[in-house]
């Protein structure tokens, strides 16, 4: 059906694809797995005509084809849905779908004809999408289905999906998989790029594993398991479970009472939230993204330039409700922000300068003239410490942070914050976009910090991550804590229900 033969693609010094062979059989769901930078997205972008390969050929239905642009790919029946949707928010579903393939004569746009075709397609695959709804009124899951319709409307027989489940709740993932299975029944071929092994095993027929730009495994899903796939991806044995002893919770470190965070337009992003975090325990916050987690963590860290906080926050018996971010850090509150590019790093600064962000005004970052001059030796020592303890690669303090992979950027941030020996760690999405090897490392470090007596408040969109790490789990929905569950007792279904506003049974 679709075959990549000996594809090689080089970006500057980086060999993104090294003689890649991928064969996708018709009527199957085919997963391509690998860590970040393994070359899986590059290979699929070549198949979709975004990149032209340096060498090698693409075969569609057994014939060698030239695919130079996405237009060529679409003409051959190949469609692609990207991780970030490409939809025009104020326009309707139908308008978005016909964009670039408008029906009717050149001057008059026949939207009604398009809408009825879209409705027919939607019914055929049970997508339940209204062609006349505007995009901004749709949920993320529905928007994704619009993207699928976009490809189907252009008569795609092969659908390439880039990390399709990253934005979905557990329930939405189930629905989405059902849609994919229906597509397979109707004779479509689906290629999924992912790094979530449980999904690979749940949905696909065949799987191709990539590492460092090469294909390192081609397997039937029924013949393999998560451990084997992980070993192929990383190149060594990986601990998939988090090993952690029972928590020994001590005194209450953080006490939040009736906290409300309102943004400029008056919306309450965090609405009357109360909870406690004790020393030596990890409290997880589960929830669909955008339900107030960001505002909760940032307000606790003192980042309140865009919001107003009321209620009461006590840290180790001290009222810190209106304290500045710097003073909180001085008291022993460290913060690993959810978005490392926006908040966590100065991408154009080098690793050394990044390793002192937040403590740049005091020892060991400054020296001389009453602490005005930066202490370059001290800064470099600190950077080397973080790099060594947290295995940041490449270990060169003079490199700009931009040059690091996502996993190493994250290790740098985590290392910087851990190096402060915090009493309370606020940590958001600690492993987002980080490869499996680094995830294992970060999880171990988090547990070790807990066992050293630090109180940890953990927010993550990965349900598996919060349930594996947390000792207690809070579920947040529309800015409110709607339930607390024991992560050892609960099921994904129970949490999923709470996350979407359902009641606890």
């Amino acid at each position, binding site marked *: 059906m679709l075959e990549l033969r000996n594809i090689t693609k080089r970006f500057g010094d980086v060999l993104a694809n090294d003689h890649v062979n991928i064969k996708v059989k018709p009527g199957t769901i085919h997963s391509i797995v690998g860590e970040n930078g393994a070359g899986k997205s590059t290979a699929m972008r070549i198949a979709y005509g975004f990149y032209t390969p340096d060498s090698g050929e693409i075969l569609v239905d057994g014939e060698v084809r030239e695919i130079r642009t996405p237009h060529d790919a679409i003409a051959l029946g190949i469609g692609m849905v990207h991780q970030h949707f490409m939809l025009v928010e104020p326009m309707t579903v139908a308008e978005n779908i016909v964009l670039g393939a408008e029906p009717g004569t050149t001057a008059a746009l026949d939207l009604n004809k398009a809408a009825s075709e879209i409705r027919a397609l939607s019914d055929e695959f049970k997508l339940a999408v209204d062609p006349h709804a505007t995009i901004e009124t749709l949920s993320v899951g529905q928007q994704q289905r619009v993207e699928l319709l976009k490809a189907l409307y252009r008569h795609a027989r092969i659908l390439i999906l880039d990390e399709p489940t990253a934005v979905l709740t557990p329930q939405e993932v189930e629905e989405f998989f059902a849609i994919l299975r229906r597509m397979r029944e109707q004779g479509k071929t689906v290629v999924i790029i992912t790094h979530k092994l449980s999904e690979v095993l749940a949905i696909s027929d065949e799987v191709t594993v990539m590492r460092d730009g090469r294909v390192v495994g081609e397997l039937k899903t029924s013949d393999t398991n998560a451990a084997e796939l992980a070993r192929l991806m990383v190149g060594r044995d990986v601990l998939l479970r988090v090993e952690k002893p029972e928590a020994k919770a001590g005194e209450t470190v953080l006490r939040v009472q009736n906290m409300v965070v309102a943004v400029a337009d008056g919306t309450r992003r965090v609405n009357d939230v109360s909870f406690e975090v004790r020393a030596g325990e990890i409290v997880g916050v589960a929830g669909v993204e955008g339900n107030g987690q960001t505002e909760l963590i940032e307000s606790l860290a003192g980042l309140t330039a865009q919001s107003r906080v009321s209620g009461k926050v006590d840290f180790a018996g001290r009222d810190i409700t209106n304290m500045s971010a710097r003073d909180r850090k001085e008291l022993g509150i460290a913060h690993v922000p959810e978005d490392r590019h926006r908040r966590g790093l100065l991408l154009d600064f080098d690793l050394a300068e990044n390793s002192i962000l937040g403590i740049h005004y005091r020892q060991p970052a400054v020296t001389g003239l009453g*602490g005005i001059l930066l202490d370059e030796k001290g800064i470099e020592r600190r950077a080397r410490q973080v790099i060594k303890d947290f295995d940041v690669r490449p270990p060169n303090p003079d490199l700009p942070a931009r040059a690091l992979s996502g996993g190493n950027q994250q290790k740098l941030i985590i290392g910087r914050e851990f190096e402060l020996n915090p009493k309370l760690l606020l940590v958001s999405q600690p492993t987002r976009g980080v490869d499996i090897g680094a995830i294992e490392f970060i999880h171990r470090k988090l547990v070790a910090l807990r066992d050293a007596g630090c109180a940890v408040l953990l927010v993550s969109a990965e349900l598996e991550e919060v349930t594996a790490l947390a000792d207690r789990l809070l579920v947040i929905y529309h800015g409110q804590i709607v339930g607390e569950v024991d992560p050892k007792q609960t099921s994904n279904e129970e949490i999923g229900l709470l996350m979407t506003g359902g009641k606890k049974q």
Partner: protein
Amino acid sequence: MSLVTVLMKHLRELLFPLIAVIAAFVVGGIFVLAIGDSPIKAYSELIGNAFAWPDGIGYTLFNATPLIFTGLAVAVAFRCGLLNIGAEGQLYVAAFATAWVSMKFGGVVVDVFGQKVSYSWMTLPAVILVPLAIFAAIFAGAFWGAIPGFLKARFGSHEVINTIMLNFIAVALCSYFTQYHYKVPGDPIMQSAPIGESAHIAHLGKFIPGLPERIPVNLAFILALIACALVYVFLWKTKWGYEIRATGANPSAAEYGGISVRKQIVLAMAVSGGLAGMVGINEVLGYHHRYYDGFSDNYGFTGIAVALLGRNHPVGVLLAAILFAILLRGGIFVDAFTDHVSKDIVQILQALVILFVAAGARYRGSLNVFGLLKRSKV
């Protein structure tokens, strides 16, 4: 890092602006050809005279002095993520302030229609008056720069609009005070009464053998060199510079790092304004010895070009300021000694340099393929 790698790193930084300058001269040469002159002749008039001793070098350095100050001013603001279009206004206010102080405390007595009229409150000696006058220039410039900084920090209004508006206000205010309060009656020129002689700063000719004292390059040039060094230390070696650069690089991350973005905006604009204000030292204390209405040859705006070409780095600013100063002076010779080309060629070249620097940002990526332009720390 070994000396060679450090050197290579800086050479890489230089390479890109150099390409822009060469490209500008090539295109400018086509203009000259089209007009009907020899580009080689025009360019040799334009540049060749700058290196003659003592006049060429002396005047080039004199012309470069204000551009170094304004270039540094724009660069500091830019490092904080701000575009200071207001260096022009800041330097006018500063020049007036330094002239006012040097007049009021300089024991100035002027002969007005046969009568001795005093323009001073007291007479201070040079050791006190010169530092006081320098302080006045820096302070006035910093104050005028801090206004748009404060407006941005407090109300979020854009600094580009506000600095432009404050330029008009500055020029008009200085003209008003000159015309109605500090002009010597009967003087046909729009200028203030002279400043006290104890406020004059020495021309470099006084210290350098072979450099005649008539050439106006003065101690302000030395101050400009010191300012370059201090700006470098400030931005890259102090915690304040770290905070300003962090704010410019990523305000969200700066806030996360416990840095008050608002404070940095005001601080950066004040430092920027203070640097622009130092132009007043060169022009008033070192050259005109009075406030002279309209003295600035667009120094504040040329400073934007200087900073851009100099990659917002003090060393780059120094080199770019000297280049622009060479052009400024060379224009006179082009006017006089070529058949068709006028000194407007200078404006064309300046504009072309800016266009190529701006357009080049797009092409840095492809040059990276050769590993020539890898980003370095500064």
